[in-house]
């Protein structure tokens, strides 16, 4: 299975400080992490790959520092990492972001399943995933807790107010993940070392 995981690097909310005068975020010196929901999404994706074979590619739109977050993803089971970056992307709203990411998906091509985290801590909108699905004209399942692939169809466990729903979905599809029953795995020393040495392609397709 050819799986894509969209990941966003976000500031660590345990370290968030608000400037009391300007009422804005102090970003300087705040460590960055992989968005927690994206970490769950990646764990689900890697488990699917381990079960069915294939590759997991992680895609992120962000500044160069997001490469560190992509390396973290490589150290916990992702096979390839791509950064799409351009000054012009700064200040994008969700529609722009989803458009950019969808264009990348088309360029990279051939994915059976796209994972996103439910929402990015910070923006907390939860919109990029569904908007990407719309751009790509594929079905979506949001608030996913677990997923299985059988006979070329997706079987998804989806959050519901009263419990959960079992949803069937055709492939290719996009899913957004809230929380799984499995904790994201820890990197091992070896996988960390390998991730540190890995080549991460930074794409700026608009330029080429």
């Amino acid at each position: 299975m050819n799986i894509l995981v969209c990941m966003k690097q976000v500031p660590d909310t345990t370290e968030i400080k608000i400037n009391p005068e300007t009422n804005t975020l102090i970003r300087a010196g705040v460590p960055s992490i992989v968005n927690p929901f994206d970490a769950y999404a990646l764990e689900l994706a890697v488990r699917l790959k381990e079960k069915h074979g294939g590759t997991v590619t992680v895609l992120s739109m962000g500044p160069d520092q997001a490469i560190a977050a992509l390396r973290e993803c490589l150290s916990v089971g992702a096979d390839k990492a791509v950064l799409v970056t351009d000054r012009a992307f700064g200040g994008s709203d969700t529609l722009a972001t989803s458009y950019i990411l969808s264009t990348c998906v088309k360029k990279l091509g051939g994915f059976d399943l796209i994972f996103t985290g439910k929402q990015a801590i910070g923006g907390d909108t939860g919109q990029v995933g569904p908007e990407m699905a719309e751009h790509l004209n594929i079905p979506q399942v949001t608030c996913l807790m677990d997923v299985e692939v059988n006979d070329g169809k997706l079987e998804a466990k989806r959050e519901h107010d009263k419990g959960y729903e079992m949803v069937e979905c055709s492939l290719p599809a996009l899913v957004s993940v809230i929380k799984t029953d499995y904790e994201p795995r820890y990197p091992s020393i070896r996988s960390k070392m390998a991730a540190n040495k890995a080549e991460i392609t930074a794409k700026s397709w608009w330029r080429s």
Partner: protein
Amino acid sequence: MDSYAFITQEQRDFITILRDILDKELAPIITEYDEKNEYPMHVHRTLCEAGFNSVTIPNELGGLGMDMVTYCLIGEEMARYDAGFAFSFNAANGILKAVYTHGTDEQKKYCTDRILNDGAISCTCITEAEAGSDAAAMRTTAVRDGDEYVLNGTKTFISNGGIADMFLVLASTDRSKGAKGISMFIVEKRHGVQAGKHEDKLGIRLSDTSEVIFDDVRIPASNLIGEEGMGFKYVMQFLDTSRPFTMVYAVGLAQRALELSIKYAKVRKTFGQPIIANQGVNFMLADMEAQIQAARQLIFYAARMVDAGIPLGSLSPVIKTFASEMAVRVTEMAVQIHGGYGYCKDYPVEKLYRDAKIFTIFEGTNQIQRMVLSRHLAKRQ
């Protein structure tokens, strides 16, 4: 981490992985396991999966083949969470060091596979009820019978004794020769080893300390390491190099005590100001920092010597005495700084104070260390 100026990014990464795991898996259960007097096996397994049990195992045997400095950085960090856990987790080094130095290729591969692939827990069995400092007086025997040895005896105060799968055992093959009659063996639990009394200790309670009983335990003769009668000498050699690195746990422990004390002193107010403003308190903190750093750098220096193949000689007892006594002093000051609260189980410092004491006793008492050190000095020109 930032106390070692020559730390590499790679070493930082390992410590970050370690912290992540221990923050989530160990930190929340320390009090519980301290009360239960139990080793958290699930944390052990998680760390093994991440590769932390293979740090000093050579590359060619499937390990990470890292140097002693890296090992010490990792060990100190682990002990910052729990010194007893760190000590037990790294106990595999005993048997591995023994076979890597004196064992056959087959023995090296066997023990490494058991630890890396089977996740076997190991321990080193030397001490007996009547043979602690005077290890040569041990009474456990290993009698040759055809192509087997039969072991009989009881070992006491064995770290990991109650949970081990594999044992490095010192036993006498010829009691008439005293120290020169002691040999070293690899023994598996399935050979019939029994765990005896599980000690109810003052501190390092996450580390299992138990009696180990050998009652007509039969092992293949090929489980002898090196030559008969050389066991005691082998053990003295590697204890010499491993002792300092057990002390890195004392540094981690003391470091935690200092961090907690600084935090408390900034927050606790008396007479309208935080107690850290009082010289009586901040001088103690200054002393703690100075001593911890001194012990730490002494150990890292020794680690570099080991990596360079230079024998430690007199430095080994120096490190052992200095670092262990430092830990006891620092944790005592930590309790003092916390005042009444430091004496209560609600706060973590009383545990650190209890944990520290063992460091002056095990791995060769500080009295024995002074004896060894003074002999070194007497030999000097």
